[in-house]
């Protein structure tokens, strides 16, 4: 039963959604809309699972004094403060939850992402080498795009932004589209394999 029930649910849901796409009329429309709402409810449930997992991982880390456990109380306190203020005051503007979000969460999040510039510079310095003609081509393209993406490129030579737009619109699109079409065909084949029960790895070893 552990195998048959999930396979039957997957088959039914998958077939209903395919039929709903090609035949957007009753009863498939009703079934499709209901499944879409069910998906949103299940996805909301996943947020609670995530919260439980977060608490479990960090309380365990503190209890066993695992590596970097000292950061875990900060995580738990941060979570609880946001959770409680959100419950009491809601997300309305200028109330404590919104104040904490705009003045703590937002600047800290932006700061973390901005660190990327330092690592990109360091990695580019160590790894970006014109070691063969293909790497040289990539390097030249990168230089043109980097210059075309900022006003200083146009100040150096007004054709640089045009070169950037050409690189992004023609060679880049050709490569991206090839990758996307390949990936899309992979998604279609994997989805069909899952719907018909051929691909079962997602069952987590229940087969």
């Amino acid at each position, binding site marked *: 039963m552990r195998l048959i029930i999930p396979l039957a649910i997957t088959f039914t849901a998958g077939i209903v959604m395919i039929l709903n796409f090609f035949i957007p009329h009753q009863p498939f429309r009703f079934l499709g809309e209901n499944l879409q709402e069910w998906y949103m409810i299940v996805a909301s449930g996943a947020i609670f699972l995530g919260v439980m997992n977060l608490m479990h991982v960090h309380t365990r880390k503190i209890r066993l004094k695992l590596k970097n456990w000292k950061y875990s109380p900060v995580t738990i306190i941060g979570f609880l403060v946001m959770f409680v203020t959100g419950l009491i005051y809601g997300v309305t503007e200028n109330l404590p939850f919104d104040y904490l979000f705009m003045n703590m969460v937002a600047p800290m999040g932006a700061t973390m992402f901005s660190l990327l510039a330092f690592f990109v510079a360091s990695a580019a310095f160590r790894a970006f080498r014109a070691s063969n003609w293909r790497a040289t081509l990539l390097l030249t393209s990168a230089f043109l795009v980097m210059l075309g*993406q900022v*006003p200083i490129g146009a100040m150096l030579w007004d054709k640089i932004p045009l070169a950037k737009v050409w690189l992004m619109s023609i060679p880049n699109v050709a490569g991206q589209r090839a990758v996307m079409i390949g990936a899309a065909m992979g998604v279609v084949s994997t989805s069909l394999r899952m719907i018909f029960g051929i691909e079962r790895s997602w069952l987590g070893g229940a087969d």
Partner: protein
Amino acid sequence: MADIFEKLGNLDRRIIFVLIALAVIIPIIFEIVFPNPVGAEPSRDLFDYVDALPAGSNVLLSFDYDPSTMPELQPMAEALVRHLFEKDLNVVGMALWPQGASLGQDAMSSMADSLGKVQFEDWCNLGYKTGGGVMIVRLGTSMSAVFPTDRDNVPWSEIPMLRGITNLESFSLIISLSAGDPGIIAWVMMAGDRFGVPIGGGCTAVSAPTLYTYLQTGQMVGLLGGLKGAADYETLVGIEGGQAVKGMAPQSVAHIVIMLFIIIGNVAYFTRKKKGGAK
């Protein structure tokens, strides 16, 4: 000379970090602003499309990002909201990312205050819902089924500007400001291709190359790529001293510094290679 380049090739990365920090900090301290000419770029296409919409049209603005990408996407949000308000368009905000709803609220309420726009009459924020692409498909058949209330729990039926809106086809344009998945691609596939609603977007610079494919096919009407896209939109809208335009000088200098490091690294590599040391 060769020895100098060899030594430079083994530069401590802390020196790189300091130089990058200086490249960003100095233009900010001295308030250096570079002129930002806008050429025939996808950012102009989006501006022209919004500019041509008749007053009173409904526009859905989806804030699909979080604070980590806020430096690039929040200036876009503010410039777009300002343009939409100035054109007297009805702006309905929502988010596919949980934290996007608060960032969207901040952008819309601050612009509404300065331009005298009224919440629930000229704009509203429906907030965040889970589900990504599947949720978008459901919006295509019924928006009030997905959002029975707005972000502040005001019922759909009590919001005057939503009375004429039933599903995604009620919108003249959907704009997604996206930092990843779910984001622009989900909107293009689920709303644009399936329900025929025009899609515009703004994204981080790193994700722009993927989205150029949708511009060429006409599946998107325009795109703001990274801080440059935001600066372009600020310039086109006519915002004086906008955050993105101000950010162009530090970004320009940082790009130049990174390029110099790449050149130094390559010179050091070829110097070593000449000596037979590099692989």
